């Protein structure tokens, strides 16, 4: 894992057109970006598209990174907003998905995807939350970001993150049936 200071240097090299530096930045963050996108969007294809769009934005806008936060936080913020955009587009213009397997399915790949996927009950529970609560819960309780990091990614004060976490978990608890108060 690259230390944050070096990451900022890497990003500065990206601005000069250094492809190798960009690939290093991407490799450092692609797993978490994909994980965040998959948890927000609940669909592997869309998550991969969003991951791709996120890194294209990182490359194209590297110059605009101002160093106020860690490079990772900046990238996750782009990822979350890219997912928001996808969700909005999906709401405005629901598209008919192509069949999942046009090619003959590869059993090994299928098994790999299944074991690397999301638990359906978690997808269903998270899907019932509004985006504000869902993203706070995903970033904090699933991705393990600290409260200030979540606040930075979502662009809201820490107090708002706390409130969204509490309410989001409360709604999840109710859905899971282990809520003991209303």
């Amino acid at each position: 894992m690259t230390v944050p200071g070096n990451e900022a240097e890497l990003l500065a090299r990206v601005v000069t057109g250094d492809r190798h530096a960009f690939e290093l930045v991407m490799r450092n963050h692609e797993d978490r970006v994909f994980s965040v996108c998959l948890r927000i969007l609940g669909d592997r294809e869309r998550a991969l598209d969003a991951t791709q769009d996120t890194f294209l934005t990182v490359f194209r806008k590297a110059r605009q990174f101002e160093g106020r936060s860690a490079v990772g936080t900046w990238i996750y913020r782009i990822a979350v907003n890219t997912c928001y955009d996808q969700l909005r587009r999906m709401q405005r213009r629901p598209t008919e998905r192509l069949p999942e397997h046009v090619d003959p399915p590869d059993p090994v790949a299928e098994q790999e995807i299944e074991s690397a996927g999301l638990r359906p009950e978690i997808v269903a529970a998270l899907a019932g939350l509004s985006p504000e609560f869902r993203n706070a819960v995903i970033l904090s309780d699933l991705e393990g970001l600290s409260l200030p990091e979540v606040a930075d990614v979502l662009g809201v004060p820490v107090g708002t993150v706390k409130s969204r976490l509490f309410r989001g978990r409360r709604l999840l608890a109710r859905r899971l049936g282990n809520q003991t108060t209303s």
Partner: protein
Amino acid sequence: MRPSNQGMHEHDLDLIAALADGSASDEATARSLVETCPVCHAEYEAQRGVIAWLADSPTPVMTEMERAGLHRAVRSAIENETPSTAPAPWWQRLGYVAAGLLVVAGLAGVLQNAGVLGGADGVSQSTATTGAAEAEAAGGAEGTEAPAEEVPFVAGDAAEDFAPQGATTTTAAASQPLAFPFAQVADEARASQIQREEADTSEDDRECLVRAGLDHHVVVREIDEDASYLVAMPEDPAEDPVVFFVEVPGCRIVFEDR
């Protein structure tokens, strides 16, 4: 301190949540609260249950095939591109200007000390100091963490769309441009003497409020203009008259006025 459900307060909720996820700065106080308040204890257990359930979830990973496809697609897309050559953002340009002023002022000071330029002693030094302060102020954000309330510029339309707006007591959720007079409508809602306990909230609206995390709230007004909002307030008249705007059909809070 805002009264909330069943005798708990907003800060209690924060304490309970923090104790449940291990981020409580004052754990003794939080524990004491949970041990002495049955409702708080139940909330705490519920929060812990959800956190444990989520923690049990494996982290999704890309398969090697997906990873290779991603790398191929990104490489291909940027093959003939260079990172944006757009002008540097305003804060950087301001920094350059300030640095330029600093150099000019410093040079003037040197020339003055050398007797090349006239003027009272100290004037040039004062100018140089001011220039340095401006340069620091303009460029000082670099390398420091932004306060949570500040929004560093983030690339892309999406990032701009979700920049938070509003004052400390008023939270605008991100995607909502402030063209709509939320604060004014909120004041009207508070001033209209609506008896909250008599508000007639339909089942659909109530479900929408619950989705937005606003259980124990009622709809006091519906707005259907360019966008549609439910205007919601706590159903308990004893609670602070916080006004929430919930976008429909998305059922998300877009503005909160305290």
